[in-house]
């Protein structure tokens, strides 16, 4: 793995006087990957991306791009490019001049610059006559595409994104997420994206890194981050989740207050404590005769319509409410106040080996 990595970080530390924003981060990003770094604000993801593009200096540690160490190289000499949160389109230049800016810096002839700019407008599905438009005449979505075109004109080894979609409305964001994923396929470039939105990360990424408190909590493919989180933080960050505090006497038999366990399961160390995780979509309403590996009883507190799905909050034996989600066609009639039996099976649970 390590030899083939395009970008390698080893023990990267960033301190701002007394505050340590990054505590020795290691990371490998591979060629052609769509890699997303997700974390809440203050987790260090913005600090990290600024180090990667060269706008801040590392306090210690090393960053390598292919065979070259780049952590001491200033931003203007690195073969990487970033799409800024604010997009940073130059307001005093036309769309065409914006896209050609990196080519002009390389002193490419005007003809060639123009051809490339028009090609990029095609690639991003912007009409060619946008070449003459002013930035102020473009809509939010068009500006995104211009910013992308400009970054692609630079032809970077890695294209970085600093939450460029966060200011857009929901529908446009959804459209552009898919376009970005599509663009990644068509260009074959390496994309490194940071966001605080789990959904954005899930839709687009090959691999996701979850950041918290200046460290990576977990780096894995999207399905594993969602289905096999390594900590309570990751589990809760990645959407709705039910966590039961469980103990294990022998590493095979789990027990938790109020939870009926009809199976044995590996995963927790002997005499270990941990968390049993089950996502809301895998919990079923159980009749008296249904057989499930795990059963728990409770009372429905609240019902929320989420569009195609209905979400129920159920007061169970533990302090946290149990959340379950059903498709609208499987809606429970007169749900609020009902006493219900909930069941789920061993192949849908995940055990987190920490208290």
């Amino acid at each position: 793995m390590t030899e083939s990595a395009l970008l390698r970080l080893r023990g990267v530390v960033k301190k701002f006087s007394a505050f340590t924003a990054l505590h020795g981060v290691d990371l490998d990003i591979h060629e052609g990957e769509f890699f997303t770094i997700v974390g809440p604000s203050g987790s260090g993801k913005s600090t990290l991306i600024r180090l990667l593009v060269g706008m801040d200096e590392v306090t210690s540690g090393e960053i390598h791009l292919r065979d070259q160490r780049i952590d001491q190289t200033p931003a203007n000499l690195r073969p990487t490019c970033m799409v800024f949160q604010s997009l940073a389109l130059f307001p005093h230049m036309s769309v065409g001049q914006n896209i050609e800016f990196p080519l002009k810096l390389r002193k490419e002839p005007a003809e060639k610059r123009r051809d490339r700019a028009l090609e990029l407008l095609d690639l991003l599905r912007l009409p060619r006559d946008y070449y003459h438009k002013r930035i102020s005449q473009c809509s939010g979505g068009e500006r995104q595409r211009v910013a992308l075109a400009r970054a692609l004109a630079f032809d970077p080894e890695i294209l970085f994104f600093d939450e460029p979609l966060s200011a857009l409305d929901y529908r446009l964001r959804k459209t552009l997420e898919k376009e970005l994923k599509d663009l990644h396929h068509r260009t074959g470039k390496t994309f490194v994206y940071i966001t605080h939105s789990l959904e954005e990360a899930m839709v687009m990424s090959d691999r996701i890194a979850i950041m918290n408190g200046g460290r990576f909590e977990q780096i894995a493919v999207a399905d594993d981050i969602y289905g096999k989180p390594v900590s309570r933080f990751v589990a809760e960050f990645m959407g709705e989740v039910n966590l039961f505090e469980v103990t294990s006497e022998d590493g095979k038999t789990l027990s938790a207050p109020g939870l009926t366990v009809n199976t044995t399961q590996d995963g927790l160390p002997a005499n270990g404590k941990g968390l049993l995780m089950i996502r809301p979509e895998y919990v079923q309403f159980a009749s008296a005769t249904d057989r499930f590996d795990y059963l728990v009883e409770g009372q429905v507190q609240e019902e929320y319509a989420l569009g195609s799905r209905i979400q129920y909050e159920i007061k169970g034996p533990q302090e946290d409410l149990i959340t379950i989600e059903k498709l609208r066609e499987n809606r429970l009639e007169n749900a609020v106040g009902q006493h219900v039996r909930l069941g789920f099976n061993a192949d849908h649970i995940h055990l987190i080996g920490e208290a």
Partner: protein
Amino acid sequence: MPASRSTRIVLFIYGLLVIGFLYLPLVSVGFASVSRARYLSFPIKRYSSKWYADALASSTVKDLLWTSLSVAVIVTIISVVIAFFGALAFARYNWRYRTAFQKLILLPIFFPQTVLGLALLMWFNSLGIIPTWKTAVVAHLVWIAPIATLIVAIRAYGFDPALEEAARDMGAGTPTILREITLPLLMPGLVSAGLFAFLLSWGNFPLSLFTTGADSTLPEWLYAKMVSGYSPLVPTLGIMSVVGSFVIIMAALCVAWMLRANKESKIAQH
């Protein structure tokens, strides 16, 4: 939002006051400058352009205009250059003594100009420099450059620092960034700072009084003539001074407008 009745009344009174205290006096100076009589008295019996002819023929007036113009132009150029870099230091870059700089630069503005003029005169004397219009340039700069800096700084606060970072990220070095990004974006601020600098210098009296030595600027001469030996040239030169600054502002606005029109058409045909 439509103005309420009371707001309209207040605005009307305000308008009357502006006209009564700002424009009417100026008009009366205008009348005085075209009256044949040596002293202004209404109604004016005979109109004449004699004083303008006299003024244009007089070598004193030429010297006055030339001195005032030299001081104002040099002050404008230097202020704009100082303001460009000063505004970046003020608003853009984080450096150790930035807050101290931001406060210190404001001090000359709050200093009474007469005191500042006196202090500078004493300072030039102790350095053994004989005051001329060149020392007045220095004195004007002490007061005007900070104002110009503030005007440009407001503009500098207004643009996204990510623009410069983006340019650097795409391979631009510092000189290229200044030329291609920072300068064009600060240009409106620089133009207004330049206009302010010119007008403040052109009309300045207290600083010039202390620091021009044997030379004299227009405002100084107007004052001197009012104190000792009124001349009918006083209103004439006063009007010429107002017209001069008006023409220069119009010329600057025209140039700015032409530059913009030129750029638009370049974008369009690009």
